[in-house]
């Protein structure tokens, strides 16, 4: 723990970092004085461990539409994910939750024939702007998938270091010592350090399912993202491992904004500050979790959270 807390990056630095360096006609950085990341900044510094944490950034979806070929999976969603909060997205299978989340870090476009319209604003920057480097977007917005998927050919250490290595612009961008420090802090951040510090050179695939998922969280933490998207991160885990991940989410929101897709309404109620209910590609209702589960304003939300369908 550093007594006076790690230095904060200024918010107006972020979007510049996201822009391709060699794009001549890059738009001017967004207006300064944006305070999107500040509300929780103080507590974030206080709680952050020995990580060089930067506060999370807000994400705003504006008229987001996503397609698979001609099929429209997300039909014009407006939604804000507030900085350093946990937002849960609930809804029946096939309602477009995952697709919507995959649009945020532009993973949706990796599927052949898939495309997205509308805009996704990270703080003030539209990640779909033509001058924006998709690689930088994905470094800023990390992702944890449904099934734990550590890289099978890599050790625990290399798995965590992989994000830094795979996205570094040149060889030796990170010194050995710096890499070790990053890996340790990411593993501590994911609550896995105590369990694996003695066997960092063993294969990541040898860990238990829950440990593997925390390894994947550590892997995405290592590149210092501002936002982490979790697509049903616990659906392949047992209750004990799920509990660990949920506790971790609570700790992580001091450093990142978290968006979690979940099928499990109890989980949404346990971890989320705000909850959004989606149905058939549309956003039905979003609000404080407590409100969505106790007094939703839309009858469809009420039917869903009380288990009448879905």
């Amino acid at each position, binding site marked *: 723990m550093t007594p006076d807390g790690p230095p904060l990056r200024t918010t107006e630095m972020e979007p510049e970092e996201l822009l391709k360096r060699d794009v001549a006609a890059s738009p001017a950085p967004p207006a300064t004085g944006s305070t999107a990341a500040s509300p929780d900044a103080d507590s974030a510094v206080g709680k952050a461990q020995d990580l060089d944490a930067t506060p999370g950034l807000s994400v705003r979806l504006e008229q987001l539409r996503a397609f698979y070929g001609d099929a429209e999976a997300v039909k014009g969603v407006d939604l804000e994910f507030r900085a350093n909060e946990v937002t849960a997205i609930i809804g029946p299978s096939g309602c477009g939750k995952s697709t919507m989340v995959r649009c945020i*870090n532009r*993973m949706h476009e*990796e599927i*052949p024939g898939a495309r997205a319209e509308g805009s996704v604003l990270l703080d003030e920057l539209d990640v779909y702007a033509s001058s924006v480097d998709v*690689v*930088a*977007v*994905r*470094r800023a917005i*990390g*992702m944890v*998938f449904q*099934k734990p*998927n550590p*890289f*099978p*050919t890599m050790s625990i250490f290399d798995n965590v270091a*992989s*994000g830094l*290595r*795979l*996205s570094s612009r040149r060889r030796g961008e990170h010194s050995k010592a710096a890499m070790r420090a990053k890996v340790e802090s990411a593993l501590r951040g994911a609550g896995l350090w105590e369990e694996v510090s003695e066997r960092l050179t063993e294969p990541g695939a040898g860990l238990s399912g829950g440990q593997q998922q925390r390894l*994947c969280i550590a*892997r*995405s933490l290592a*590149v210092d993202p501002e936002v982490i998207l979790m697509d049903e991160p616990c659906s392949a885990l047992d209750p004990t491992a799920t509990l660990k991940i949920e506790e971790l989410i609570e700790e992580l929101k001091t450093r990142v904004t978290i968006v979690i897709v979940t099928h499990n309404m109890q989980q949404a109620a346990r971890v989320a500050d705000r909850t959004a209910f989606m149905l058939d590609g549309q956003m039905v209702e979003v609000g404080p979790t407590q409100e969505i589960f106790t007094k939703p304003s839309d009858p469809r939300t009420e039917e869903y959270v009380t288990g009448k369908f879905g």
Partner: protein
Amino acid sequence: MSVPGASAPQLARFAVSPARRRTDRIARGAILTATVVALIPLVLIVYYLLRKGLGSWSGSFFSTNPTGNTFFKSSSIGGIKSAILGTVEIVALASAISIPTGIGVAVWLVEYGRDGRLASTVRFFVDVLTGVPSIVFGLFIYIVLIVGTGSTYAGYKGALALSLLMLPVVIRSAEVILLLIPGALRESALALGAPRWRVIFSIVLPTALPGMLTGVLLAIARAAGETAPLLFTAGATLKTNFNLGQFTNSLPVQIYSDVTSPTTAVVNRAWGAALTLVTMILLLNLVARLVSRRSRLA
């Protein structure tokens, strides 16, 4: 779960019928017969290779070139040094050409071309290429590089013919393995901010490597045993040659010319050379498997 005192009719419900037993026995017998029939030629090949080939193995068999002198006493016919080294050189060059190219094509098919029209066309031609008889590749190189340029046989021309032969085998086997790599692995690397080429080089290819090795070895083994593409591309010669721009001897061509000889000692040399070829491929297989197992654990 046996129920004490279960009634006889109830037991009869679960009893295996005699007809069922009979069918089972016949089916098992048929499968066993098929296995034995398939094994007979394999065992015989190994048996004859060892029986006839081992006799001609000796120190000088591996360390001297064939003399070309086949009508006098057996000690003067020489060994197969030039053929062994020539095969190693030609197959090494053919592998150096076809393995990177083939894996490159497979990566393109799986990671970029996918189900597009161009990719389907490439797949179709690769399939056609797989079925082309090996002599046609030799003929192609002969017409283009020997008749076409008005020059003579050379080791590198043989290697080119073999690399054409290996290419479709490498492409198809590598493609199958690449398709087995879970998409989630690529996605999680992409989501870490890795550019596509980094995902391919750092995640996809290392994961696929042990699997691709099998296909690559198969291609090498097939190429190493081919006579037809080498006969009129690399030619046949007696002397050991490290310059692939000249005539280069090879084991299959040596075997081909020896086995038609009227001299017993020379025919025996063909058996010895055949055993050598099989042993070389076996050793290559073993070494490659050991290396890949070690790299997987690391």
